[in-house]
Every structure is written in structure tokens, then in C-alpha cells.
């Protein structure tokens, strides 16, 4: 077997961050090559380098494709050479038909006039190849996610694909759709198409892959032959980084039960038949930090948002109790008033009014406390904003600075200030340290410890397992909308969490 692709010593830097550090990847012709790694390990960045999203010259290293050095300037360039990437988020236009989507940008046309007969005939052939029995004129909107995935593959096949890259293709799929897709991959392999599969799901990897490359923290850890490979070994390679002293000291003595969520079930807001959260039950004690681990898309954010004022989902059922008494969390303001606050995952689009000042944002969720008869008391507001600026050590010239001018870490402190000012009993933090640097992370951890020391309950959702292990007293593991395990700080390890996820 000849080597189809070799990526040598690929290094890609973003301002201040090395996303890829001398990554090597070697893909043989006709194989299915799996790339495994945690969220943020650099898998997607590597694929963006390969497909020309990051053009030649914006990274260091060399790509050798079909025996010659390749310099892709954009996606078009790599597609011309038969490298097709299917992203996690599908890139189909829902309002167009299957045929229109397949030939989008590549229309069967003469002098700009589309030859529909040719388009539809060719679409039928392609759909037969991927085993999808839908009419070419069906709107993509009206078929399920699993079938949409197949349309994406048909689209790739329409371009004479040599190397097909699938980024988490089964993330949004049900069990049997996943299986169908994996079987299709094996079939394509038999037809001579080389595949790169990016996946967390080790069962899948073992089912289809010939070779596995594990990436961690932007570097290649190992390339293994999939035959006889144990999942434990992959997990170990995926998470095996050394833990240094990145977390402030804390000693906690959790008290009485504070928050209890029972049998919480949530349905998808648009796809009414999809159950997003499945009978989740968990609790938080006073002075305790509880983690929720899980991969992206496992339903962690949906769980939190559905509890916080039913901000996500439909037909929500289950109960929420605070200190044993049922509380009403049916709207955001009721949830806040009951003592539950939620810091969103995405601070820029969901947490802050970016063009406004620190003061404006700090008091936004609790204007009652800085107003009298509906009239704002500006001085009081300033005092509050100043108080939190000092308490959280937000680095800014003044509280009248617009938050858009602050760094990620300081923005996060402003969002934290906003929620602290609502005097919550339980604070749910969704990815509280995403996209901020190590120093600021440490400060946020300190704030979390202080909250626990004051007897508040903290729920911490994070994709970074070391963070959960370093901060939490207990960790719930979530997968596909269900809480699949609960580990105490003593029991928890990255391997155990990962194996709870992959073995679910």
C-alpha cells in the first residue's frame, strides 16, 4: 500500500497559542485512519490545515499528498485534488433540495443554465451509492440528520473524492443511523476511497479503523495499528498529561443538601421527537463544587439552560428543590429570585452586552437592588460595580470601560460579577474558563473556592477534565443526554470519566 498523505511537523500558531506543535500524520491509501483526541486537542485545526482553510504559509511544516508537496491555498484547491472534508456542523442549505445541495457550487450547467435532468439523474446514482432512498427533489429540511449526513457524503462522492475526512460524523446521530454510516464507510473503503475519521467514540473507531493516531495538546502522541488495540490504551494516550499545580488549594466540608434536580427530562425545541435530556437527577450540597463532565453535545448546556428559566427545550418535566422545598424555575427571573443563577457557556453572545460598560453589565440581572421605584440610583450602581471589580480583581481602568475592550478573562469576571450580584444559592457555571489564559483561570478557580467556602453550591460544567478533577468534590458524567455515572473526587480520574463516556 502506498502512502496517500503525509503531514510532517505541522505547527500552527494563533496569537499567543500554539494549537498544533509538530504534528505528524501518515495516511495509507485505501485505509480508514482514525484520529482521536479530547476537545481542543487540535484535531479540527489539523484538518483545517489539510483542507486549506488555513492556507499554505499560515502554518509551518509540510504536506505531501500523492507523492508531491501540496500547497493548498483554500478549500477549493484541496477539493480539486480530491480531499473532501465533512464538518461536524453540516454545511447543507436546508431550503434547497438534495440535488441542489449536492451540486451546489459545482452545478451541472451549460452557460449558466442548470441541466436539471442531468443533475437529478446523477443525484439518483449518487444516492444509490450511499444507500439513501429519497427523491433528488426532496428538500434537505425535511429529512433527518442521519440522512443529511448521507447527502453530505453523496456530495463528496460527486466531486471524485480520494480522501474523505469525516469530523465527528455520528455526533448527532442515533444508534442505527450511526451504524449505517459506519458500514457505508467500509463500503467506500472497498471502492478505494481513503477515509480519515475524527471521533471520540472508541467503539466506532475499533469497528472501522485500520490505524489510529492519537493527538493531545496539539501534538501527535501515538500512531497505532487498530488490530488488537484496547480502548484503555487509546484513552490513556488521549488524556495522559501530567497534572501540575494549576489549582488553588481548597478544603471543603459540604453541608446539607441544597439543590436537588429529579427526573429532569427535556425535549428538543424543534425536533419534537428528540429527547435531549433523559431523566437526569443530581444534587448539590451547600459548600460543594459539583462537576458535570461530558463531551460537547452531550447535553450539559441543555440541562443547565433548561433548569435556568426553561431557557432551552420543550415539554420539560421533573422537579427542582432548594433545601427540600420545590422552587419555581419556569422563567429566568423566577429562577434568579429562587436563588439559582447560570453563567452561560458563551459569554460574548449570551452573557454580555458588549457595547456597554462594566457597570451596565454588572447590575443587569439585578436592577431592583440598584433602583428605587423603578429609578436607577447611579451612585449605588457605581458602588456595586466597583465592589465587584475589587473583589474579583478585574483589570480595567474604570467600571465605565466598555466590556468589549476587556480581555477574555476580565470579561468572564464581569459576567461572574453579574451573577454574584444576584446573590445566588446555587451558581451553575458553564465552561467558566473557556478561552481564557492560565493566570485568569487560576483567579476564577479561586473565586469558585470562595463561593463554596461561603456555603453556596456550585455546579461546574467543563470540557476540560483536569479542571473538573482539580476543582470538584463530586463529578457527574453525562453522555447523550443522560447522567451515566457519578464519581467522588477520590474515585475520579480522567480514565474513569472517559471510559464511562465511551462505554455508555
Amino acid at each position, binding site marked *: 500500500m502506498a502512502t496517500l498523505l503525509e503531514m510532517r511537523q505541522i505547527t500552527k500558531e494563533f496569537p499567543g497559542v500554539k494549537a498544533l506543535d509538530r504534528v505528524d500524520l501518515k495516511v495509507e491509501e485505501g485505509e480508514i485512519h482514525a484520529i482521536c483526541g479530547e476537545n481542543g486537542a487540535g484535531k479540527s485545526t489539523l484538518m483545517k490545515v489539510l483542507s486549506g482553510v488555513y492556507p499554505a504559509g499560515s502554518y509551518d511544516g509540510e504536506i505531501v499528498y500523492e507523492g508531491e508537496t501540496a500547497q493548498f491555498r483554500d478549500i477549493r484547491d484541496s477539493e480539486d485534488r480530491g480531499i473532501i472534508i465533512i464538518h461536524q456542523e453540516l454545511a447543507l442549505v436546508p431550503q434547497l433540495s438534495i440535488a441542489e445541495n449536492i451540486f451546489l457550487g459545482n452545478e451541472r450547467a451549460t452557460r449558466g443554465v442548470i441541466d436539471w435532468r442531468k443533475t437529478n439523474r446523477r443525484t439518483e446514482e449518487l444516492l444509490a451509492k450511499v444507500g439513501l432512498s429519497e427523491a433528488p427533489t426532496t428538500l434537505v429540511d425535511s429529512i433527518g440528520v442521519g440522512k443529511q449526513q448521507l447527502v453530505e457524503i453523496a456530495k463528496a462522492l460527486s466531486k471524485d473524492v480520494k480522501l474523505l475526512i469525516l469530523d465527528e460524523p455520528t455526533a448527532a446521530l442515533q444508534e442505527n443511523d450511526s451504524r449505517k454510516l459506519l458500514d457505508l464507510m467500509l463500503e467506500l473503503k472497498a471502492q478505494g476511497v481513503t477515509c480519515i475519521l475524527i471521533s471520540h467514540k472508541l467503539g466506532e473507531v475499533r469497528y472501522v479503523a485500520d490505524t489510529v493516531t492519537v493527538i493531545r495538546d496539539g501534538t501527535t502522541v501515538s500512531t497505532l495499528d487498530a488490530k488488537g488495540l484496547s480502548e484503555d490504551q487509546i484513552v490513556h494516550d488521549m488524556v495522559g498529561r501530567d497534572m501540575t499545580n494549576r489549582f488553588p488549594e481548597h478544603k471543603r466540608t459540604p453541608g446539607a443538601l441544597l439543590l436537588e434536580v429529579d427526573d429532569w427530562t427535556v425535549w428538543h425545541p424543534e425536533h419534537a421527537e428528540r429527547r435531549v435530556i433523559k431523566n437526569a437527577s443530581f444534587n448539590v450540597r451547600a459548600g460543594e463544587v459539583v462537576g458535570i463532565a461530558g463531551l460537547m453535545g452531550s447535553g450539559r448546556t441543555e440541562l443547565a439552560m433548561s433548569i435556568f428559566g426553561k431557557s432551552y427545550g420543550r415539554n420539560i418535566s421533573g422537579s427542582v428543590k432548594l433545601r427540600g422545598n420545590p422552587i419555581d424555575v419556569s422563567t429566568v427571573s423566577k429562577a434568579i429570585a429562587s436563588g439559582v443563577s447560570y453563567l452561560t457557556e458563551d459569554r460574548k453572545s449570551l452573557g454580555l452586552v458588549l457595547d456597554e460598560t462594566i457597570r451596565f453589565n454588572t447590575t443587569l440581572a439585578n436592577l431592583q437592588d440598584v433602583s428605587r421605584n423603578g429609578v436607577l440610583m447611579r451612585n449605588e450602581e457605581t458602588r456595586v460595580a466597583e465592589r465587584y471589580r475589587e473583589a474579583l480583581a478585574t483589570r480595567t481602568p474604570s467600571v465605565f470601560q466598555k466590556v468589549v475592550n476587556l480581555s477574555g478573562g476580565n470579561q468572564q469576571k464581569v459576567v461572574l460579577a453579574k451573577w454574584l450580584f444576584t446573590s445566588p444559592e446555587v451558581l451553575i457555571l458553564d465552561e467558566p474558563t473557556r478561552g*481564557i489564559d492560565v493566570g485568569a483561570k487560576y483567579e476564577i478557580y479561586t473565586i469558585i473556592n470562595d463561593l463554596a467556602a461561603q456555603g453556596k453550591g456550585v455546579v461546574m460544567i467543563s470540557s476540560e477534565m483536569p479542571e473538573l478533577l482539580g476543582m470538584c468534590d463530586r463529578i457527574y458524567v453525562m453522555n447523550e443526554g443522560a447522567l451515566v455515572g457519578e464519581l467522588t473526587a477520590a474515585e475520579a480520574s480522567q480514565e474513569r470519566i472517559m471510559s464511562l463516556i465511551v462505554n455508555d
Partner: protein
Amino acid sequence: MAVADSEHTEGAEKETKGVGAYLASHLREYGLLLALIVIMVFFQAVTEGTLLRAVNVTNLLLQNSYIVIMALGMLVVIVSGNIDLSVGSVMGFIGALAAVMIVNFDQNIYVTIIACLVVGGLIGAAQGYWVAYWRIPSFIVTLAGMLVFRGLSLWLLEGQSVGPFPREFQIIANGFMPDIFPAGIGEMLAGIFDARKVNVLALFAGIVTAALIVWMGMKQRARNKAYGIEDEPASFFAARNFIVAAALIFITFKLSTFRGLPNVLITMAVLTVIYAFLTSSTVIGRRVYALGGNQKAAKLSGINTERLTFLAFTNMGVLAAAAGLVFAARLNTATPKAGFALELDVIAAVFIGGASMSGGVGTIIGAVVGAFLMGVLNNGMSIMGIGIDYQQMIKGLVLLAAVIFDVYNKQKQG
């Protein structure tokens, strides 16, 4: 990928210090004031003093009153992240309703006024309902409203003009505040200023208001200083206040030498103060800015964004009704054409005043100044005898220039 958007500018926050930097970051506010002054000076010169003659100043205020009144509501709607295209039609419809009630059905004037304001509120509420609770884009809902209420006015008036109104109704727009000071003082001042007559109340009101503005500004300044809040440089503060105070006294002096304070100026001033206060100093005003600035963040902060949007449109309806009453009273008749395309002038005023199409940005004072800027342009060009064709083009370009200026400024800062 999480690492990609990580920022590493800790401790390197932007600081704004010094006069130049202050001017740069507040170019918009000063620019607007400056533009108004430049335009006024220009037209004063080319019209050989006609622009600022007492009768014309009075006229300017009367002519633009309904635009200003609607601009107050429009500012709220636009800050909330929406738009209302129906205000011209609603204004015309309410004028027609008033005319039919008073002239055709002989209803009591005060009953009519209240009924009209209520109907305006209901119209706004009906449109706001679809925008807020059904998430239908406000552009569509109010475009429909524009057509519906244009049609309704035609239907109500049966295509005819209805009028005239009784005197008590006309004074809403055409009345003036009687001088409450002894006639002797007026005559004395008339002698000093070499004017035909002087309405002391008007002059007095102007001086008191100017003093109040300066005094409140200084108080705020002292408070800012106590809190260590970065403030405008003293020279800017002095110059700005001097210009505003002098302009105010000058205008009220002009008014006093004609017929005194127009009733509608009082209405306008009171509404402006109320809305400036509402938007800048109350919880509900703050929430409107949050809603327009980031609807999702506002919602996740416990703000009932739907109700707020609904209220913004209801409020707009009431103000459009008020403007309709003023307009009908001023023309002394209701015509099917009343308010035609006026929504565009109102919207233009708000954008010239610095509001942002995407919501969350804009001030009442800006919108009012924007309305007068458009008004002075209209008035000045009409005095000069410039054709309506050129007038439209120039107004269009001024609007475009103001918004380009905004966008450019923002890009430079960001």
C-alpha cells in the same frame, strides 16, 4: 476549538486620557451639535437672516413638533432593535379619527383626545403583539400596518378632507402661552432690546431652563469627580454648556419678540425631558438598551424581552397618536394624505441622532437634535427656493453621511 479564540491581552486594556482622546471617543455627540450649528449658520447667511427671524423660528418649532414627538418613540423602538414603518400612517389615521369625531360627530374635544391616544396605544399594541410574541420581523408587521392604516384613513375620511376644527382644538398646535408677567416689564424690555414687543414668560422660561441645564451639568460633574469617574475636559464642558445655554436664550428671545412660547413647544419639551429620563435613568429604560444590545443576554438576565418589545410599540402608538393630533390641529383639517412618508423623516432623525440600526445605541437628545437638523435643512432649503427634487437628494445624502460617519468611527475605535 477553544484555544483558537483565547485572548492574551490581559492588563493591556485601552485607556482614554487627554482632550484629544476624549474628543475622538465622543466625536459623534459633538459632531452632531457642531453639524447643527454649522447648518444653521450657513442658512442664516445664505437666507440673509431669514432663518433666525422670530416668525421663522416659531415656524420651525411648529413644523417639526410632530416629527420630534414621534422620534421620541421611534428612538425607543430602534434602541430595542426594531423599527416602526407605520407611524406616518398611524399619525394620519388618528388625525382623521379626531376630525371625524369632532367635526362629523360633534364629540367633546377632551373625550376625543383621550380616545385618540387610547386608539393609538391599541394600534401600537396590536403591532407589538406580533413582533414580540410571534417574532415576526417588525419591518414586515409595520409595513403591513403602514398600508392598513393608510387605507383606514382614506376609508374614514371617504377620500375627503375633513375640517375645520373648533378653536379649542386648534390651540394644541397653534396656541401660545399667554404672558403671565405684568405688561410693563415686557414694554420695558422691548425698549431695551429695540424690539416691537417682548413676551417676558418666554424669555424667562429660556433663561431659567438654561440655568437649570448648566446647574444640573455642574452637579453631575461634581458627583462624577467624587466617584473618580472620567469626565469630559473642563474646556469642553464649558464650551458645550455655553453654546447650549446661549442658543436656548437666543431662541426664546426670538420667540418672545413674536408671539411667545408655542403650546406645542411646551408639550415637546416636557415629553423630551420625560423620555430622556425614562431611557437614561430608569430600570425599564436600561432594559430596553440591554434588549437591543444583546437580546439573548438580556433574556438570560431575567428580562422579559417580549413584554418590553410589546411596550415599546405600544408607546410608539401613543406618541404617533399625539403627533397625529398636533398635525391635524396645525393644519386645521384632516386629509387622507396626512403623514404620508413621514415615517422616513422620523427614522432618519433617529439615525442622524446616532442610533444604531442593530439596536442598543442611541439617545433621546440625539434623536431630537437629529429631527431639528432635518427640520432646519428642510426649512432653510425651502427659504432658499431650492426645489423639492434637490431637497430630497440632499436630505438623503445627509442621512447617508451621518451613518457612514458612525460606522467609520466605530471601525476606527474597535
